[in-house]
């Protein structure tokens, strides 16, 4: 295959000129020390601002919440005794306390019992929305990349949803999905969109896809613009049809941009809070992990810390996995390092 060769060659290593190994050695020892001294204060400051709250939250997650009440005064006892893994057990193993001091499987209606549901819901949203956004985003990007009359208008139209704040988007879709809203009027139905499980989830997916597809489209477009028209020309000469050109040239060459977009979006959806909170208030099977964290904060700070630590580790693990999977060049390491 004549046309497979150049494409594969281009895609294997990232098209971006990544810093090769020898260049780094050119820095003299003295320069390295100066660089370190210059950067150190910033790192220390960042460590304080960013690191301190994270470490504190992780530490708090091992403390108990105030649950004892002095029968005389009615006041809460002292908070924060060392509780070991109690908080984690509550979430991961569904062990909730009882008045007699034993633990039982968290009853329906406690926040503890909603943990695994929220994980499933969050992952479900992530898979569905990112898939849809990638496919639609690719189509939009290909459209925007074409030269045609009114292209600027189409580009602007596609990008507008991304420019609107999420909270506004959520309110907007709330109006659309209202029982007496536009959607029901158009479809001639009287469906209570946000009051039943699957319609509510669908509503959130639609709103999220509407809002963030432009983001993916934009990144893919940037990737597309970097592909030289010559490659397509020669592929055409070699007799490749449109589908072959897309699969063998476009896809491999936009892969780095696509990977960045997908990873960013995935991390974004995994910590999604505002859209479902405003649209459904977390009701009807739309409580994401972040909504659960905020709900728990009202009942107990330390158990909420445990939950946010779990959420953090969960998202971190997925991020790490995805970077590996895509062998992506987003952290600046040379592509060959992954294999």
């Amino acid at each position, binding site marked *: 295959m004549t046309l497979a060769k150049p494409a594969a060659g281009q895609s294997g290593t990232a098209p971006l000129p990544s810093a090769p190994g020898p260049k780094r050695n050119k820095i003299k020892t003295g320069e390295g020390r*100066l660089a370190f*001294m*210059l950067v150190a*204060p*910033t790192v*220390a*400051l960042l460590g*304080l*601002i960013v690191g*301190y709250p994270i470490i504190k939250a992780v530490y708090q997650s091992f403390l108990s919440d*105030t*649950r*004892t*009440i002095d029968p005389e*005064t*009615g*006041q*809460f006892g002292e908070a924060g005794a060392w509780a070991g893994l109690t908080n984690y057990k509550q979430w991961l193993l569904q062990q*909730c*306390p*009882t*008045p007699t*001091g034993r633990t*039982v499987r*968290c*009853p*329906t*209606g*406690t*926040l*503890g*019992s*909603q943990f695994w549901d929220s994980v499933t819901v969050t992952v479900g949203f992530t898979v569905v929305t990112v898939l849809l956004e990638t496919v639609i985003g690719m189509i939009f990007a290909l459209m925007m990349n074409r030269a045609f009359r009114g292209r600027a208008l189409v580009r602007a139209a596609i990008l507008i949803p991304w420019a609107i704040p999420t909270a506004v988007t959520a309110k907007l879709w709330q109006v659309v999905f*209202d*029982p*007496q809203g536009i959607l*029901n009027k158009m479809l001639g139905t*009287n469906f*209570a969109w*946000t*009051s*039943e499980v699957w319609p509510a989830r669908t509503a959130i997916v639609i709103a999220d896809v509407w809002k963030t597809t432009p983001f993916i489209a934009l990144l893919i477009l940037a990737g597309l613009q970097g592909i030289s028209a010559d490659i397509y020309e020669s592929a055409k000469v070699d007799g490749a049809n449109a589908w072959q050109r897309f699969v063998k040239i476009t896809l491999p060459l936009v892969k780095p941009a696509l990977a960045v977009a997908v990873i960013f979006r995935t991390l974004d959806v995994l910590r999604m809070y505002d859209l479902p909170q405003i649209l459904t*208030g*977390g*009701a*009807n099977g739309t409580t994401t992990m972040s909504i659960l964290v905020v*709900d728990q*904060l*009202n*009942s107990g700070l330390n158990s909420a810390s445990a939950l946010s630590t779990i959420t953090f580790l969960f998202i971190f693990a997925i991020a790490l996995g995805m970077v590996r999977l895509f062998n992506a060049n987003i952290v600046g390491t040379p592509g060959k390092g992954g294999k």
Partner: protein
Amino acid sequence: MSPKVALGAVSLLGAAVVLAGCGGSDGNGNNSGGDDKAASARGPITFVTGKDNSGLMPNLAKEWNAKFPNEKVTIKQQSDQADQQLSDLQQHFQAKDPNYDVVTVDVVWTAEFAAKGWIIPLEGQYQMDTSKLLGPTVDQATYNDKLYAAPYASDAGLLYYRKDLVSKAPATWDEMLAACKGKTGPSITGAQPACYAGQFAKYEGLTVNGAEAINSAGGQIVKEDGKTPNVVTDEAKKGLEFLVNGFKQGYIPKEALGFQETQSLNAFQAGQLMFLRNWPYANAILSGPSSKVAGKFGIAPLPGPDGPGASSLGGHSVAISTYSKYKATALDFLKFVQSDAIQKYNLNQGSQAPVIESLYSDPELVKKFPYLPVLAEGIENAIPRPVTPFYPAVTEAIQTNIYAALQGETSVDEALKNLQAAIESGTAG
């Protein structure tokens, strides 16, 4: 050389500021024990309250400042969302902020604030006269047999009904359903209006409506200790069944599963509902120019299974922060906001339900607000939502389980059993 030094100095300075900031909040060890001086101390105070949508606050400040020119009050307005008001108060109390002298407390927050030692009990030298007040408003401000807050504004659920379609207000659930027969449909978008709706979205309003149904049928959610759940009873079952059957048999429209106050009000205002449960404030909007039912609706007490039902109590109290430096002034402020003059002004200018019993039969006020006697009856029969420092867990348990039953996901029996277990777990300790 010099830029490096400068950079390092700037960073160090930044770090020092951050460190100082961290230390500041913790090092302010001004706790409740050593406040004997503050008890008689007088000085300017700050009154923290939710967003003033009715414009009453400037007058309040003006009146007070005229009376106490040396101890002026500053009004600090929070958001108009209850959740945000709560978290703002929690944060300031945790930081032991001495600038939050007097705070507005939603009826369901009192117990938590009291148990955390954030607000002071109104006893001893802080004694307040509660004899003129409506009983339930005092009950909801009381925790562990001590009054912790001064009732300021009250609220109770009322039944709004279509006078043009129904000859007289129903006193019982059966009468209400009988009045709906043949005149209503199962959806708010149908040709006929739907029968009845309250606030059934999964939020605090569902706790209010669920508690009303259960209390009206003679059930209770927690026992008098504010902790032990008591929902696996025939009475509670009867109450919850009224709502669950409503969705099953169609006398509550299915759209109501997404209703909060505004949506339910909109539906009634558009003529899509025969009966609506809402707060007194709805009266003003329903009588307004954009209402299709202006002049066509009446107001009655909530119905129950055998006679008038029991409303959940709403409203706000005013409490003194433990960390206030000028508690004597704060106490006077509490008495001031509860005075006849202020309570009357708030009713006249903001339609805010007073906490003083006698105002509800004041002929002049009744002439202006014909629903006052009905409201007084509603408040007298009202039952506070559980008074417990574990309120967030309790309301979550109520909302989740009642919502599941309304959706038909769980049976009434199962929902109540789960609710019992969830409250037990949420208040264990």
